[in-house]
């Protein structure tokens, strides 16, 4: 990064060097003119020139004024558009007139302007025309070229005032300093070009890095997707195995016990009815134990919605989902808090509501469903009413049975009525102890 500062230092050196050269040449010219006047040889001098030079003191004063204004304009670094054009035209004009004042014996100031333009005009396509124009001026302002068109007063003519040894020394100093200026300009340009090349390389490298990172990321993504499908399969497999194990451990165990018990009963029944009774009691106990186990297993497969949030919000989500899935208008009214039930209770309430809505829509073709949950003393009352076709004679399908069974487990009851739409009313006794918890 420090490397990038070097051209700026070069520019500062160039600016100072140009000031020195301009001062040097203009002072030589001024002192020569004064010398001619002092020595009364102006007439001789005028015989060699083709125009009247400005008064001696004016040459350094005007050159420095113009140079100062050029440097000032160079301080503006954020010009854009027409302002940039104006800025550079101003610089070229002042540079050209300074060269003019110095009889075109020094044109290095235009190099300074090129250097400044290179540094502070950001885009290459903008730089190009400016640099071409400045170069054009640089070539036009060359002494030999201009003097072939217009008869200029060469620095040598001015220096004619001095003796030849002093003259060549003065000229030598001028040539050395102006070559130094060109040399610094060259170094400066090399630096600027180097920096630009470095920049390009850096950008290229970053680009490459980005590309490789991108492809790595893509691969990782594919792997991740593979992994995801795998893990879904694994979960499925795991769940299946678990279910199989559960069934085997609970239902299988209980059923096996029941079958063996009943087989024993069939042989015992006639021989020892009392023992058979005992045996049947034991079998019932086994069956009950099995049911408990199954319930426990099923509990582990609770609906997702309940798992994530409370019963009330799960129901609301359900209603919303059904609303959006069907055209039915589903209203709900929860008069009591639903947040104080145990998991199995919540499960059953949720299933009942779900089943009823499904039935109303599937069998009753209802377009309006009303869900009302309220509480009467220690009974939770769920009333679900729709405006569907209903039915005269109710055939208990799996759904209603299932509901009744579930409610049984909670010692609740279920009533339904198929006239005037379909109405389901479920009553669940609230267990002591849980009520206060909510």
């Amino acid at each position, binding site marked *: 990064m420090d490397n990038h500062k070097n051209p700026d230092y070069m520019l500062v050196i160039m600016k100072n060097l140009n000031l020195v050269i301009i001062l040097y040449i203009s002072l030589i010219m001024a002192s020569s003119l004064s010398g001619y006047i002092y020595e009364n040889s*102006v*007439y001789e*001098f*005028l015989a060699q020139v083709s125009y009247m*030079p400005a008064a001696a003191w004016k040459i350094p004063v*005007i050159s420095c004024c113009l140079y100062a*204004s050029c440097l000032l304009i160079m301080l503006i670094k954020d010009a854009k558009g027409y302002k940039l054009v104006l800025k550079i035209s101003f610089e070229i004009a002042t540079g050209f007139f300074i060269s003019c004042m110095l009889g075109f014996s020094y044109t290095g100031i235009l190099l300074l302007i090129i250097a400044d333009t290179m540094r502070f005009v950001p885009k290459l396509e903008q730089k190009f025309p400016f640099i071409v124009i400045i170069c054009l001026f640089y070539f036009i302002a060359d002494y030999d070229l201009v003097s072939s068109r217009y008869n200029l007063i060469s620095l040598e003519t001015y220096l004619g005032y001095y003796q030849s040894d002093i003259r060549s020394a003065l000229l030598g100093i001028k040539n050395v300093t102006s070559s130094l200026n060109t040399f610094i300009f060259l170094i400066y340009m090399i630096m600027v070009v180097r920096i630009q090349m470095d920049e390009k390389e850096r950008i290229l490298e970053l680009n490459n890095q980005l590309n490789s990172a991108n492809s790595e990321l893509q691969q990782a993504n594919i792997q991740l997707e593979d992994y995801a499908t795998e893990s879904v399969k694994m979960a499925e497999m795991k769940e299946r195995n678990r279910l199989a194990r559960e069934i085997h451990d609970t239902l299988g165990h209980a059923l096996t016990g029941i079958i063996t018990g009943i087989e024993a009963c069939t042989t015992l029944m006639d021989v020892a009815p009392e023992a058979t009774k005992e045996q049947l009691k034991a079998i019932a106990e086994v069956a009950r134990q099995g049911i408990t186990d199954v319930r426990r297993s099923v509990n582990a497969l609770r609906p997702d919605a309940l798992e994530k949030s409370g019963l009330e919000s799960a129901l609301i989500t359900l209603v919303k989902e059904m609303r959006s899935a069907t055209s039915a208008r589903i209203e709900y009214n929860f008069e009591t808090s639903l947040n104080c039930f145990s998991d199995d209770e919540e499960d059953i309430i949720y299933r009942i509501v779900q089943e009823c809505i499904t039935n109303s829509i599937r069998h009753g073709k209802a377009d309006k469903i009303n869900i009302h949950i309220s509480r009467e003393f220690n009974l939770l009352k769920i009333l679900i009413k729709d405006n569907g076709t209903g039915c005269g004679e109710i055939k208990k399908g799996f759904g209603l049975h299932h509901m009744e069974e579930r409610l049984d487990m909670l010692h609740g009851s279920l009533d339904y009525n198929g006239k005037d739409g379909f109405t389901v009313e479920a009553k669940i006794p609230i267990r002591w102890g849980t009520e206060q918890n909510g």
Partner: protein
Amino acid sequence: MKNKKNILIVSLSVLLVVSSIVIYCGTYKEFMEGKDKTVTIGLFSDSYWEVQNGYSYCVLDDAIKLFEKQNPGVKVEYTSGILKEDYSEWLSGQLLSENAPDVFYVLADDFNNFAEIGVLADLSLFIKDDKDFNKKAFYSSAYAYGQYDGSQYGLPYECAPKLMFVNKSILDKEGIEVPDEEWTWDDFYSICENVTKDTDGNGTIDQFGVIGYTWEEAFESEGIKLFNQKGTKCDFTDDKIGKALSFIERLESINMGYSADSKDFDLGNVVFQPMSFSTYRAYKPYPLKVKKYTNFEWECIPMPAGPDGDNISTLDTLLIGMNKKSRNKDAAWDLIKTLTYNTKIQSEIFDYSEGVSVLKEVTESEQTLGQLVNGNSFSLAVLSNAVEEAVVVPRFRYYDEAISEVAQAVKAIIDGDYNISTGQIIWNRKINKYLKNSKWK
């Protein structure tokens, strides 16, 4: 914030540029000194005609009086005491340090240079705008003297044609009549041939026909135009040049190798010498005052005409120019006009100077001059004609260098072995080459 800074930068640099322009053009002087009501004029204290003269500022002082009366509130100032030999240097120094007077006299030798480097204001615009000014009042040759590259950079102040001085005593002695004003090269040659002799019998020629008559006088009276107006081309192969060269060759051969100088003329041993009319005026009317030529009678007549030319020669003219950087150009123009165009001031030239007025009206009506030339071999009309018809040389820079190149050619041809027409062709090429190169000097 940044915008403010930029505005400050831009206005500062514009201020610097404007002040540079003000300094360059010298407009600041007006702010410092206010509107100037003084016109300065530069001139030298002695006579332009290289003769003794005690009245150098008389004409100018009268002109200033007249000018200040016509332009109330405007003052004219001049620096006195500058000799003619220092004048060019003084003026150049003043011009270079930008202190030069608004109006200044321009010596004929300096005019081309000053016009070329642009220190003289172009008077054409003033002439065009000034309804009182009519250039026809001037002798056209004198007026043309102030022209350079198609513009009028100066107006003539006084002039003098080149004339032929004749030693009447020798002609009387030899029984030859003074030639009339339309004499030719043949008359000239035969007189020279007759008078060139050894009078005291010591074996060396001691009486000569002519001195100082060079190829330049011969070219002028043969009507030869050497250069084009811009000085880029020279026609040295003209037949007339051949005639002039052979005439010079013949004239020189009369002396048979002996040569005379101006001292011989002063001593009364030479019949002819070309001289400026101002010299005639300086010495003729005041024989008691300046006794330069005491031992012989003398006279002056126009130049002898060549076979294709006329009895003419060049005109020496003192010009007045205006400083291009003058801040009071209108007043300066009025002052120039007072000096050159006012008949009263111009007639004073005959009282205080040795030249001839550049205004036809003044010169032709001049009493003094009429008395001066009457009774001589030529009339006032002849003089006036000699001025009007005088040769106008092209005005270009390095004219003097080009002329010396031609002089070298003439010398080489006359002294050389090859014949004249071959020499003309060879030197034509050389001179044109020189002109081409000097253009880029």
